[in-house]
């Protein structure tokens, strides 16, 4: 544990500054709520504890019996010990007596007494003693999960809490934001992870640093600079004041930046118009100004509505939500992407089954085509919200034509039903697909005949083309959207769109990268959809670029052998552009 002022240089993931105190989330241990109870509540807390213990004992008996049958006595003995731990009357009596004397909830008392017991064992040099601690913790986890239920296992957070943990799912970010967490320090997750996307969308600072949760003491003062990736543990008074000033200056930076947005459409030096759109996940502070400036929403990730809840939202809930979005952006258009659910967006305790290879598994459009009711409910809600004629539908993670056909058939069925019921909707609603699997990029010309637009998701396209998991920091050096293979697939998709006369958008992180901008303009991209914070810079840079000139650089860049070769060519070009301006 770090005891004195220490600065850790981590990776910046989501910008912003937070000053507060650390709350450590130990992985595998549910965060236990702690609250006072009345004298009348003592009895029900004790009864709840007894029920939780009974359930745990029953579970362990089952485990012991099946282990005995399958693997023999030695393994069954482990559960024998755990059974004794679970039903230890002396220990349970201590818990019960503290519940009535301290008047606190059963979960918090049980949890703290378990830790009291286990802590000396955990620090023992003897591995068998440490193993014993794990046995006790395994039992405690079971009892506590019965006692509090999974969804409530988070508790209230103190004001100005910065959460420090091993990893956070996008769902975690949402739930903790509702509990007023002001920032996150994680040991895992890249700048392209969904956790990062949503944190940026919510303007919550995030930094990633290796095994940081094991080093920061719980409750210590902490400064988090998500823009630089810096974490200051036990900051000095000077640090505190300095960062408070910085925070004030950089506060609502996003909104201020967007206010600078030119009100004329972004044009290249030679007068070609490029659409610049915004990627959104949730209603946010920038919505009003985006709507006022008529910035189209190139990608609205609807699954984030789902992530805040533990089940699929019903039609009415969804309709209200989409209708509000359609109304808010009445002067422009919104591309609603249907639920894109997958391993990296779900918290571990949702219904999803464990897969050996989840990135290549049941995700994106795949579960939606199987869970027809969920998909049709969403389509129905979207169609009902389309009466202003400003909504488009985007289907995620298409791999082959049959998926497009299936999805379109279901959309037609929903439209038919709505017509029968006399409910108004946009009959000509545009349907597009995400190009984020190499197979889709390579067959884009065929796919393009069945859709109204295509949108390239470069984050997944990069991960699938390079076989590099974007959540895995160990192989982060491989993950690079400027890899010539990725760029060739992007070019293929843009060419296919041109040939079939439908527009193509890039909506991944790389779309906001000024270095890549001339290249994408040269390829003939129609629209770039980016995080709202990137829009101003993109619009400014586009004005300096001659679209005829950049077209000439494309073949040379695409024939590069490595991302670094691509980047150095793009950097040379960027320098040349900046020079001609001066």
């Amino acid at each position, binding site marked *: 544990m770090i005891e004195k002022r220490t600065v850790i240089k981590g990776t910046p993931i989501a910008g912003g500054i937070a000053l507060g105190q650390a709350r450590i989330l130990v992985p595998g241990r549910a965060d236990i709520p702690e609250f006072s109870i009345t004298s009348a509540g003592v009895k029900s807390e004790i009864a709840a504890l007894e029920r939780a213990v009974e359930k745990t004992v029953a579970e362990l008996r089952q485990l012991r019996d099946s282990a005995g049958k399958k693997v023999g006595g030695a393994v069954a*003995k*482990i559960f*024998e*010990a755990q059974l*004794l*731990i679970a039903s*230890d*009357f*002396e*220990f349970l009596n201590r818990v019960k007596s503290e519940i009535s004397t301290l008047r606190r909830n059963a979960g918090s008392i049980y949890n703290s007494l378990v830790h009291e*017991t286990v802590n*000396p*064992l955990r620090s*023992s040099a*003897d591995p*068998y*003693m440490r*193993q*014993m601690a794990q*046995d*006790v913790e395994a039992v405690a986890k079971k009892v506590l999960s019965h006692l509090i239920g999974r969804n409530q296992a988070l508790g209230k957070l103190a004001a100005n809490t910065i959460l420090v943990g091993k990893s956070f799912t996008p769902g975690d970010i949402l739930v903790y934001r509702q509990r007023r967490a002001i920032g996150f320090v994680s040991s895992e997750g890249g700048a392209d992870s969904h956790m990062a996307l949503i944190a940026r969308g919510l303007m919550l600072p995030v930094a990633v640093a290796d095994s940081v949760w094991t080093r920061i003491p719980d409750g210590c003062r902490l400064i988090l600079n998500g823009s630089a990736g810096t974490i200051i543990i036990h900051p000095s008074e000077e640090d505190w004041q300095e960062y408070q000033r910085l925070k004030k200056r950089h506060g609502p930076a996003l909104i201020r930046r967007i206010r600078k947005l030119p009100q004329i459409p972004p044009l290249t030096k030679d007068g070609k118009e490029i659409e610049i759109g915004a990627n959104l996940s949730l209603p946010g502070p920038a919505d009003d100004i985006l709507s006022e400036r008529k910035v189209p929403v190139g990608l609205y990730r609807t699954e984030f509505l789902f992530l805040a809840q533990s089940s699929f939202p019903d039609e009415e809930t969804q309709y209200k939500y989409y209708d509000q979005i359609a109304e808010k952006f009445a002067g422009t258009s919104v591309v609603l992407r249907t639920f894109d659910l997958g391993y990296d967006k779900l918290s571990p305790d949702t219904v999803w089954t464990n897969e050996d290879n989840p990135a290549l598994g049941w995700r994106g459009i795949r579960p939606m085509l199987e869970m027809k009711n969920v998909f049709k409910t969403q389509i129905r809600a979207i169609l009902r919200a389309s009466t202003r004629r400003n909504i488009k539908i985007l289907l995620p993670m298409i791999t082959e034509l049959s998926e497009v056909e299936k999805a379109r058939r279901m959309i037609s069925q929903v439209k038919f039903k709505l017509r029968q019921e006399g409910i108004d909707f946009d009959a000509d609603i545009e349907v597009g697909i995400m190009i984020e699997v190499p197979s889709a990029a390579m067959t884009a010309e065929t796919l393009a005949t069945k859709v109204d637009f295509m949108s390239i998701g470069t984050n997944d396209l990069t991960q699938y083309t390079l076989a590099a998991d974007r959540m895995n920091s160990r192989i982060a050096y491989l993950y690079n959207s400027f890899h010539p293979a990725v760029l060739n697939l992007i070019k293929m998709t843009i060419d296919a769109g041109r040939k079939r006369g439908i527009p193509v958008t890039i909506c991944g992180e790389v779309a906001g990268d000024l270095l890549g901008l001339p290249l994408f303009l040269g390829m003939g991209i129609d629209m770039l959809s980016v995080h709202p914070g990137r829009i101003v810079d993109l619009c400014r840079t586009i004005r300096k670029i001659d679209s005829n000139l950049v077209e000439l650089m494309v073949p040379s860049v695409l024939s590069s052998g490595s991302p670094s070769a691509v980047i150095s060519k793009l950097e040379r070009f960027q320098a040349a552009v900046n020079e001609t301006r001066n």
Partner: protein
Amino acid sequence: MITATVRIINKLGLHARPSAMLVTATSAWQSEVFFTKENVRVNGKSIMGVMMLAAEKGSEIIVEVDGPDEEEALEAICKVIRSGFNETD
């Protein structure tokens, strides 16, 4: 109340499995059982208590038995500990 001092002789000390055996042994008797190691005194019928002793090989434990069947209980409990919990390795 009667007491005896015994040494933990099994190689791995009072880890989970021996603790479980010991608690099963103490719980069979009506008498109350306490173990003391270096000023830590715990209920001998509580596995969490026994675990908290973190008694490694070679450590000495005071067994304290109090109740109607204390003599037989003390003898039986000491026997279990001295047997090394049938640890074969």
